[in-house]
């Protein structure tokens, strides 16, 4: 896939800056949660709230941004497909692969733009407060970034490759059900899993927090995202119709 950087930049700007729906979602997310996060951070700095509380809220917000922004962009793409402007995108001088890559990058950038101000406020607060939570906060930032990459790859690949909104909603519902499957099956294997986890959970937790563990998990997420993107790009480039 040979990417044209000028075209990529134009696609990213189109979605992140020019499209009102996407731009409003990013600004709305920051505008609504920003002041709340600022107040929480000040309360933590002045010792009125425990640092762990801010850390938990910041983590939740970061993950929410990682998952919500790609969904916003998927909605924008489906809207463009429905109103017909996606046809104009395909008729412009850019390869299908560039359109695919630009859209995914726009999703990642939209997530970063939504989560970064809030994350920065909380991180500065936790650093000023001091303690181990600040280190964990930096780690969570990297994880949120990786999650944003993974969720963008997955959501936007589906949004770009599937033309029918109904088919898309079935697919998303199917994957959500698949995600909930372990929870549903848990009671059936409760004892077995509990004994298995109890012996290994602590080890796993410390491994994930170690440098090797972080590199390992990051590599897995990046490889998985890259695989999704590669497959998605191939499917998108070979589509018979972009309408």
């Amino acid at each position, binding site marked *: 896939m040979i990417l*044209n950087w*000028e*075209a990529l*930049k*134009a696609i990213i*700007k*189109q979605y992140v*800056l*020019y*499209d*009102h*729906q996407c731009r409003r979602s990013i600004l709305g997310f920051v505008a609504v949660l920003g002041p709340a996060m600022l107040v929480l951070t000040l309360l933590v700095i002045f010792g009125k709230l425990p640092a762990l509380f801010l850390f938990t809220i910041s983590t939740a917000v970061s993950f929410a941004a990682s998952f919500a922004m790609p969904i916003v962009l998927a909605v*924008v793409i489906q*809207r*463009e497909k429905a*109103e*017909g*402007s*996606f*046809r*104009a995108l*395909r*008729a*412009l*001088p*850019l*390869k299908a692969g560039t359109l695919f890559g630009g859209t995914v990058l726009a999703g990642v950038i939209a997530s970063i733009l939504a989560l970064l101000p809030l994350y920065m406020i909380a991180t500065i607060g936790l650093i000023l407060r001091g303690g181990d939570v600040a280190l964990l906060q930096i780690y969570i930032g990297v994880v949120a970034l990786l999650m944003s990459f993974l969720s963008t790859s997955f959501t936007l690949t589906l949004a770009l490759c599937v033309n029918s909104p109904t088919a898309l909603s079935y697919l998303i519902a199917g994957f959500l059900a698949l995600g909930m499957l372990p929870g549903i099956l848990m009671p059936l294997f409760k004892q077995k899993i509990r004994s298995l986890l109890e012996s290994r959970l602590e080890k796993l937790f410390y491994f994930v927090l170690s440098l090797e563990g972080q590199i390992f998990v990051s590599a897995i997420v990046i490889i998985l995202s890259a695989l999704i993107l590669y497959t998605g790009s191939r499917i998108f480039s070979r*589509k*018979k*119709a*972009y*309408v």
Partner: protein
Amino acid sequence: MSDAAVLEVEGLEKRYKSFSLRVSFHLSPGEVLGVVGPNGAGKTTLIHCLLGIVKPDGGRVRFFGLDPDRHEVAIKQRVGFFLEDAPLFRQMRASDVLRFFASFYPRWDWSLAERMLQQFELEVTKKVSELSKGMRAKLGLVTAFSHRPELVILDEPTAGLDPGMRREFVQLVRTMLRDFGPAILLTSHIMADVEDLADRVAFLQEGEISLIESKTRLLQSWRRIRGECRDLLRLDPREWVAIEHDQANGELQLVTGSWNVTLMDQLREAGLKDPDVFPLNLEEIYSYVTRTHGGKSATAPTTHLGGVS
């Protein structure tokens, strides 16, 4: 087929469950080809196939002698387009749409774009969704012409526009043709647009081109002849597009697609009295071509395209 053709289409095929398109034609530099046909004839499918929105199932297409599969970006940088069914990015401001388009075309001419915007009195600060249909069409035309393309593909550019806006559109295309002479592929079911602009006309019906001819030749060779005769003349129905005989008042009306002056002598000799000849406009020609090809003759006893070359 010409080596210098801007666009060559050979046996382009697209098959759907209930419809299939199969067309061949070419477009020379600076030429305007009007593709006309009823709704569902395949005009938009043809445009979508040419612009890569839909992948064809077969055939060969060359733009400027280049294969679009291998030179997609280079070709599209030299092509302008207007898609009737694609209202440009409704959630963007008109000015942002122009900036967005400009970033894809190295030859984008802002002074030309500004000139067109002023001529059209287009409010670029408004969102596309806030513009009227006419204004959206004008914006689409600015995006189609501002990079001085060598080929412009226009899909139903005046559909839904009032007569004033339609005149502005025709004027704009004429100015562009004078200014930098692009070849234009224009699809429409509004015959007046095609009659005003096209050098050649292709009649597309049920996915096939039933007739492709220069507009001048069409207008010269199609005639309606009206005369009087009590008895039905012995005419070969294959030589006439339409024969209508009103036996009550003896009026005979004939339509031909291969008019020449000797035809009148033949008809007089056959017994037609006081024959008058009337030229047909493109709309009338279109109605005869579509009726004939579709096999839905409204003119008894016979309609046939036998005389058309």
